[in-house]
C-alpha cells in the first residue's frame, strides 16, 4: 500500500474541532499526522487537494444492498462501489434481504461479501424479529457477536407494541441499538403518496403524517420506559421532529436520521417524477421540509442517512400504486447536503458531523474522525465540481432517483478506505 500525503486541503473534522487548511499523512493504512507543512516521506504519493474538502469518510446509517436475494437490483459489490463514489467509507446494511438477515450465518455472509468487494466497509443491521415477521425476537447476542451493529425490521414496522417493548428491554440489557422504521400500518396501508393536496389531485391513496407521528411517539415512549437506545429512521414529518426534540429534552436515549430527499423535495415532486419520487415514508409538504432542516440545524436530527433503496424498472416502471417505494441515494447525498450549506442553513462542519461523525458514534463503529492513529477512512470532496446524474455516471446497478438527469454540484473526488484508494477522480495516483 502506497503512503499518501494530502496536501493543503480544507480539513473538516468535527470530532477534533478542525475546519481549516492543512495536510494529512497516511501511512500503512492509518492516519499518521494531521497538520501544516508536513514533509513528504520517501516513496509517498503527494496529492495536492487545494480547494477541496478533506473529511472523515462518510458513514451511511441506512442502506439497502439487496444481497442476498435481489442481486439484479444491487449487489454488495455494486452498492459499496456506489458508496465510495459518493464519499462513503462505511454503510449500515438493512436486513430486508432474501433471506432476511436474521441469523449469524447471513450476517457473516454479508461481511464476507463486503470484504471480497473491497470497497466501503459494511456493517450489517440484523432483523429484530425472525423473518422480519414481527413475532419472535432474533438471537441478538449471537448476531452482535457475528458482527451486527444494530437491529431493525426496516421496511416493516414492528406492529405489536408489546413485542417492541420486549425488543427494547432485551436490547437494553445488551446495550444494543434498535432502529425503528416508524409507521402505523393501520393508517398507511394502501397509501402511496403523502395524504393531502397531491393525493387528491392524483386520485391516489395517501399516507397521513399521523401514521409516522404516532409510531415515533410510541417508540420514543417505549425507549423512555425501557431505557434502551433507540434510533428513528428516515424522519419525514414536522410532528416527528417535534416529538423527538421533546424526548431529547427530557433525556430519552433517542437519536434520529432523515434522508436528503426529505430536505430537498416535497410531495409536488410526484407530479414531475412519478414513481421515481415514490418512497416510504412519502415526500411531504414544504412545512415538513422546513421542519426537517430546522431539526438538522438544532441537533434534533442527528444524522443524514440515504435510505439507498435500489429498484429495477421491473418494480418502478409499473402502475403507480404497484410501484416499489424507495430511491437510490449514495451518490447524491453529498451534493444534496451541500445545498443546505449553499442555502446558508448549515455550516460545512455540521454537514460532516451529520454524514460521518455522529452516525459512526451512534453505531459505535470506528471512523467519523481524522485523529492520528485512526484507520485512514477519508473522503476528499470538490465542492465546486458538478456532474450530471446519469445511468453512466452512477455506480449503483439501479437508477431509480428523481435526480436522474439533473446536474448536482459537489462530488467526492477521492475516497480512501484503510488508506487504500477505492475511488479517484483526481486523475493522479490510483
Amino acid at each position, binding site marked *: 500500500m502506497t503512503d499518501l500525503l494530502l496536501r493543503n486541503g480544507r480539513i473538516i473534522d468535527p470530532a477534533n474541532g478542525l475546519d481549516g487548511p492543512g495536510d494529512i499523512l497516511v501511512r500503512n493504512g492509518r492516519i499518521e499526522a494531521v497538520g501544516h507543512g508536513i514533509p513528504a516521506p520517501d516513496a509517498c504519493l503527494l496529492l495536492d487537494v487545494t480547494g477541496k474538502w478533506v473529511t472523515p469518510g462518510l458513514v451511511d446509517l441506512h442502506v439497502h444492498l439487496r444481497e442476498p436475494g435481489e442481486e439484479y437490483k444491487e449487489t454488495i459489490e455494486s452498492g459499496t462501489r456506489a458508496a465510495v463514489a459518493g464519499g462513503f467509507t462505511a454503510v449500515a446494511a438493512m436486513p430486508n434481504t432474501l433471506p432476511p438477515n436474521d441469523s449469524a450465518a447471513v450476517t457473516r455472509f454479508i461481511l464476507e461479501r463486503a470484504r471480497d468487494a473491497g470497497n466501503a466497509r459494511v456493517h450489517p443491521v440484523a432483523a429484530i424479529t425472525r423473518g422480519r415477521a414481527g413475532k419472535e425476537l432474533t438471537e441478538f447476542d449471537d448476531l452482535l457477536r457475528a458482527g451486527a451493529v444494530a437491529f431493525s425490521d426496516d421496511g416493516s414496522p414492528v406492529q405489536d407494541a408489546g413485542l417492541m417493548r420486549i425488543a427494547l428491554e432485551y436490547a437494553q440489557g445488551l446495550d444494543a441499538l434498535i432502529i425503528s422504521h416508524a409507521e402505523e400500518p393501520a393508517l398507511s396501508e394502501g397509501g402511496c403518496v403523502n*395524504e*393531502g*393536496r397531491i*393525493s*387528491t*389531485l*392524483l*386520485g*391516489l*391513496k*395517501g399516507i397521513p403524517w399521523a401514521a409516522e407521528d404516532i409510531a415515533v411517539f410510541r417508540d420514543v415512549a417505549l425507549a423512555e420506559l425501557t431505557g434502551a437506545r433507540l434510533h428513528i429512521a428516515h424522519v419525514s414529518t414536522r410532528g416527528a421532529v417535534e416529538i423527538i426534540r421533546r424526548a431529547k429534552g427530557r433525556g430519552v436515549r433517542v437519536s434520529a436520521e432523515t434522508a436528503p430527499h426529505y430536505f430537498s423535495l416535497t410531495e409536488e415532486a410526484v407530479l414531475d417524477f412519478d414513481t421515481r419520487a415514490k418512497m416510504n415514508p412519502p415526500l411531504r409538504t414544504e412545512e415538513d421540509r422546513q421542519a426537517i432542516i430546522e431539526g438538522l440545524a438544532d441537533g434534533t436530527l442527528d444524522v443524514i442517512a440515504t435510505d439507498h433503496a435500489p429498484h429495477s424498472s421491473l418494480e418502478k*416502471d*409499473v*402502475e*403507480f*400504486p*404497484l410501484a416499489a417505494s424507495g430511491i437510490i441515494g449514495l451518490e447524491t447525498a453529498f451534493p444534496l447536503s451541500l445545498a443546505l450549506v449553499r442555502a446558508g442553513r448549515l455550516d460545512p462542519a455540521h454537514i460532516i458531523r451529520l454524514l460521518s461523525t455522529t452516525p459512526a458514534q451512534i453505531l459505535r463503529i470506528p471512523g467519523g474522525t481524522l485523529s492520528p492513529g485512526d484507520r485512514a477512512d477519508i473522503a476528499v470532496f470538490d465542492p465546486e465540481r458538478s456532474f450530471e446524474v446519469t445511468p453512466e455516471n452512477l455506480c449503483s446497478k439501479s437508477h431509480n432517483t428523481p435526480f436522474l438527469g439533473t446536474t448536482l454540484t459537489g462530488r467526492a473526488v477521492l475516497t480512501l478506505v484503510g488508506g487504500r484508494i477505492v475511488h479517484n477522480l483526481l486523475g493522479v495516483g490510483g
Partner: protein
Amino acid sequence: MNRLSSRHVLGIEHMTVRDVELVLDTADALKDILDRPIKKVPPLRGRSVVHLFFEPSTRTRLSFELAAKRLSADTISVSAASSSVVKGESLLDTALNIEAMRPDIIVLRHPLSRAPHFLARHVDTPVINAGDGTNEHPSQALLDLFTVRERFGRIAGLRIAIIGDIAHSRVAHSDIRAFSKMGAEVTVCGPGTMMPPYVEALGARSARCVEEALDGADVVMALRIQKERERRALVPSIREYAQLYGITRERLRLASPDVVLMHPGPVNQGVEIAPDVFEDPRSVILDQVTNGVAVRMALLSLLIISDTNREGGGT
C-alpha cells in the same frame, strides 16, 4: 382547428376548455344519428377500437362499444381477471400484445389510479380512460356536462352540488374538475370519511351539510355509495347515510326551481335518491345514459382525426 390538444383522453385534468367545448359540440352534431332509423355512420370504418376492461362494468363498456359501432369501427373487448391485475403483471404485457395487432384506439378501465397514464407512456395507440381507480372518469364528466348544457344552454355560472363519497369517486373527481373548468360553481358534501383533503385543489367548495350544498343548486348530482370499496366501512349504516345525505323531495325543494337531478348510475334507490325523486321529471338520469353514447362517439372520432393529422411523435 378541430382537434384535441392531446393524443389521449386520460382525464379532465389534462383537457383544455377548448378541448371540452370541442367534445361537446361534436357530440351535439353526432347525437342526431342516435335518433335516425339507421344509427350508423362511416367515420371509423376500417378502424378498430379495443376495449380493455380490468374491472367489471356493464354500462360504461356498453356505451363505449355502442359508440364505436355507431361510427362503423370494429370493436374488440378484452376482460382481464382482476386477480392477475393485483399482481401487476398483466397491464403492460396485455397492452403491448394488443398494440402489436395495430388497433386504432384503446379504451381502458382499470382498478388502479393512473393506470391509463402509465399505459399511454408505453403504447403508441391513443388511450381513452374509461375509469381508473379513484382518480378520474373523464367520459362520464363530459356526458354530464353535455346533459347540463342541453338543459340549460350553458354551464358557466350554474351551481352544481355533488353529494356522496367525494374522496373515492372518480366520477366526482372528474365532474368537479369539468364543471369548475367550464365556469360553474361546484359544492360538495358528504360524510367526513368521504371527503378528500384539499378538495378545493380540484375546484370545489365543501358544504357542512347537505341542505347547505343544495341551497339554490341548479344541478344536484348524487353519487353511488360503493358498499364494497373500503376495507373498513366509512359510514355506520346505509340507513344513516340515507337519512343524512339521501336526496329526498323535501331536500330538493331547497334547490333552484329548475334543478336537474343527476346520478352516474346505477342508482341505489332509497339510498342516494328517494324512489319518488328518481321518477321526478327533474331527473335527467336516463338522458345521461343516452348522451353517454353521443359523447363517447365524439371522443372516438376526435381522437381518430387528431391521430390521422398528427405529424411525427406524440405529445
